[in-house]
């Protein structure tokens, strides 16, 4: 029912793809690292870019965001310096040719605002609501920018790096009760080495 499979895009093919579409929309940068074609545009050309690309890449896959932060509440801090910003990105593809591109833009953390894409892709609706509640990014012109997953009145934006995972702070990891306390230096110096020797 289908033609022969198209070749998987090699890394260089991804770079070529990014360059071709980047030129089309006047992108700030176009890269093909790790076999993923990525183009970066400025926030004020966000909708325009997608409108242009939609003619060539009609399939809207997803929209999401990344919080680039120097300090994190949970997990490992980034290796090296990062520029504080939100990065919003979408994935568009052409299902018949096997071409796909990541389109991204950077937003300032003080006032993260971006025009909505629901006019171009109706499917952006839920994705933007998710990015709104998880990162606190406002999508101007969105018809219904309410919480999608989180209950009404939830405070904070859980996918921001500053958001603590409270369950682990309120309630310690239950596995800890299995571990016997190690004897401290004070115990040993105070002449209580029994705990140490009992096991032998």
């Amino acid at each position, binding site marked *: 029912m289908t033609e022969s499979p198209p070749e998987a895009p090699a890394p260089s093919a991804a770079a070529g793809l990014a360059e071709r579409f980047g030129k089309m929309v006047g992108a700030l940068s176009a890269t093909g690292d790790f*076999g993923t074609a990525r183009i970066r545009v400025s926030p004020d050309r966000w909708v325009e870019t997608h409108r242009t690309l939609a003619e060539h890449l009609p399939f809207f896959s997803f929209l999401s965001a990344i919080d680039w932060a120097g300090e994190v509440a949970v997990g*490992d801090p980034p290796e090296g310096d990062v520029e504080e910003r939100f990065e919003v990105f979408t994935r568009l593809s052409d299902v018949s040719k096997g071409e796909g591109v990541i389109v991204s833009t950077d937003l300032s953390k003080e006032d993260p605002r971006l025009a909505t894409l*629901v006019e171009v892709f109706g*499917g952006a609706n839920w994705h933007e609501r998710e990015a709104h509640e998880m990162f606190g990014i406002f999508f101007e012109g969105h018809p219904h920018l309410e919480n*999608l997953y989180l209950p009404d009145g939830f405070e904070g934006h859980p996918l921001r790096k500053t958001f603590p995972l409270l369950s682990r702070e309120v309630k310690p990891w239950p596995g800890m009760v299995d571990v016997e306390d190690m004897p401290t230096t004070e115990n040993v110096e105070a002449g209580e080495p029994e705990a140490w020797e009992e096991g032998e």
Partner: protein
Amino acid sequence: MSKPPDSVTGDTEAPPPGAEQAPPESPGDQGKAKRRVVHDLWLSGTEAPVDTGRFTDEGAQEMLLEEEAAVLAGQRGTLVVDDYAAGVEPSTEQTQIVNMGPQHPATHGVLRLQVELDGETIRRVKPIIGYLHTGMERTGETLTFMQGPTNVTRMDYLSPFHNELAFSLAVERLLGLEIPPRAQAIRVLMTELNRVASHLLWAATTGLDLGALSMMIYGWREREAVLAFFEKTTGLRMNHNYIRPGGVAADLPDGWEEDVAAIEETVLAGLADYEGLLMENPIFIERTHGVGVITPEECLAYGVTGPLARASGIDFDLRKAFPYSGIEQYEFDVPTTEHGDVYDRFIVRFEEIRQSLRIARQVAETMPLGDYRSEDRKVTPPPRARLDQSMEALIHHFKIFTEGFKVPAGEVYEAVESPRGELGMYLVSSGGAKPWRLHVRGPSFANVQALPVMLTGSLIADTISALASVDPVMGDVDR
């Protein structure tokens, strides 16, 4: 809410009662005329699409194709069709809002549908999700790349292998890791068998929803053969954590070729039964023909993928468009149909079961020899026997599982064709041992978002049929 969308006014397809009749002289006559219409329609069966909202009979069971096309045209890709229930006053006293779920058994999990009804006709649908939201993307940021598969395998719990595969492919792409041919073939075998299991479970539950109770038992029975093989191979029936960055956790068990052959025989025999039971069953045809239609344009705009898109005529299969794990070397077809209704989704999924079994057979015939995981010591722990001999091996083993391995900084998107569609992982590494960001593109998320498109303007009884045909897995929607 600034402006109500146009589709609200567009979906009142049923003309007001008696609109096509001559204006009656008095209220009493009006009542009589209305009853006359009802009576005539009752006798004539499926004739005029008049006033379907007020009663139930054979005529009202028909999908009103002309009106439906008008409604869908207003929604085509550019207009948001859900989420405005709160802002718009019901235009007549006849409308009412009904909640289906989150505990409704036919919602396949904790999906809640708010349905505004005009009689039996659905005016608007609003899917409400989040009841199963567990913050897995954030959890993913706190686990190492080694621990990642244990997390993602719990998202779409009916296709755990696909979750693991997408995550592993992303990590391997960042590491620039070469995967041995045998590991790749094992991955293809397990994911394709997983597709069979998932589609069988879908057929079973959807049959149950449509009233075919025996289908439920049969589908479960055949699926059991596949799950038994999974258990034999991975030790678990679900959430396997079998496909990992660097390869797979263990080699296939002895005699696996016979197992795969037995699965193929069992499932193919069952499949013939299902098709006899369902596809030619007049009741089944009535409940599925022309129900839950979605057009190719809407599929593209809403990001609908998988069997839904293929039933609408979009020839989109990631195994062909963006091949992964060496799947391009096996021969298989991508079934497509053109009507985009529930019946066609049955055709597509049944055919996909056949094609997946075909791939599994080819894998069994051409399984390469070699290692089942990468030789790269950075990601692969030393063999168990080495731990007894070498202190360094023991330390290395310990460090891999406690600290994990560092992955070069970069961003990568890898997607696989899960039983529900495009399952993608957008993985960002900042150079450490844990992902900086893990975004999962869940196929069910996009498919459920398109439910209003499928349901607006149809009958409430068709909700169950259309919803079941989407095959939503709430673990995948909410994550």
